């Protein structure tokens, strides 16, 4: 399988990437690790006329502390997130979720920013960022803006990133005392989650993000509210699938996915000490 022919541009800085996007408009697609985009291009489900390669922007690959926040560059590879001491000690849930992405080969190439910008409800990382209450820094022609995760995912494979914009950084409140659990349910090694639950408990703050339970990555707000009002893990988890419309496919029907969401959320809450 070979992609449709395209023009290739190598971005040498974030500003250069933005000017290439401005020049080529909706003809252009950014290429980070390529582990979502290249498979789509090989299946010819994506046929960009211009590919802007941001994979060499090493200055957007970092993990650093910024006061109460852990700032992670969008081009940081899964492998570097997974093994970062800062990530492990301040937002351990993200390290755990990242270590479950694909296989080592995938984690050597894929990036955190690419996984979030792709907006795939089946991806593990959006759920973790939802549970952790992170936000995205998006740079555009007129400067940069910070978007809380709850406003970031707008639909199936859609986010609030504009055609002329670049995701540059992911910001996550530090939670070194938090307990957490990442529950990923699949039937074969390396597979994507049939359903997943990312759970974080930090004092009276509780965050729950779900994988593959709607057309976009979702927060289980009802569960969080129930925990905040003192419900048990089992009682809180009972509402995990309320109002959600998960896909039904060969792996699992809708009812089974809703069941899994409740079970995995309960296990997650229990593992996180609730």
């Amino acid at each position, binding site marked *: *399988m*070979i*992609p*449709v*022919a*395209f*023009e*290739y541009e*190598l971005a040498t800085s974030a500003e250069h990437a933005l000017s290439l996007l401005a020049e080529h408009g909706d003809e252009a697609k950014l*290429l980070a690790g*390529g*582990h979502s985009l*290249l*498979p789509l*291009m*090989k*299946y010819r489900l994506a046929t960009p006329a211009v*590919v802007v*390669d941001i*994979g060499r922007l090493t200055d957007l690959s970092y993990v650093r502390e910024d006061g109460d926040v852990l700032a992670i560059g969008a081009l940081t590879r899964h*492998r570097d997130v997974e093994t970062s001491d800062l990530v492990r000690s301040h937002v351990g849930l993200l390290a755990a979720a990242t270590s479950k992405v*694909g*296989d*080592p*080969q*995938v984690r*050597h*190439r894929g990036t955190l920013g690419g996984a979030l910008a792709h907006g795939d409800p089946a991806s593990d990382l959006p759920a973790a960022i939802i549970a952790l209450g992170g936000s995205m820094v998006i740079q555009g022609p007129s400067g940069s803006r910070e978007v809380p995760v709850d406003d970031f995912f707008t639909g199936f494979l859609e986010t609030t990133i504009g055609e002329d914009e670049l995701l540059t950084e992911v910001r996550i409140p530090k939670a070194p005392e938090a307990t957490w659990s990442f529950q990923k349910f699949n039937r074969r*090694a*390396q597979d994507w989650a049939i359903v997943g639950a990312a759970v974080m408990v930090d004092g009276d703050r509780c965050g729950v993000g779900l994988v593959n339970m709607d057309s976009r990555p979702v927060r289980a707000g009802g569960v969080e509210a129930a925990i905040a009002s003192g419900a048990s893990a089992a009682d809180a988890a009972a509402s995990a699938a309320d109002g959600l419309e998960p896909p039904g496919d060969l792996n699992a029907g809708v009812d089974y996915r809703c069941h899994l969401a409740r079970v995995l959320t309960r296990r997650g809450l229990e593992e996180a000490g609730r």
Partner: protein
Amino acid sequence: MHVSMTINGADVSHDVEPRTLLVHFIREDAGLTGTNIGCDSSSCGACTIHVNGEAVKSCTMLAVQADGQDVTTIEGLADGETLHPMQQAFHECHALQCGYCTPGMVMAAVSLLDEVPDPTEAEVREGLEGNLCRCTGYHNIVAAVLQAAGGAR
């Protein structure tokens, strides 16, 4: 586009279309056919090579993305007639039958031991989860990787 990279220590440059996959560059332009294509869709790991010392699936990378990088394929592991310890361990443990998955399996295993030098059996199984073998049932592959790790200790 002109693409240059080091493959197994030798400089290799060719003019290719930007859409050329790295695995095709390696097999067709560099003429190194040890790297196999299995699924062609990032699932089986047969095409695993090293870019800058780390295992990647060369069917899911463009050749241009490896421009200027250091690539190692299965042909680059042995030292003349002396097999790489991982190849030797595969040989001794009978870790292959048809051999189709073997180049990718060996490359993934070498990268795994770089990152986890003294793995448990579970870590070997997890570390090779991106590589499928339709013949062996994995048992002897896992044994070979553990033997190679022991030899390095």
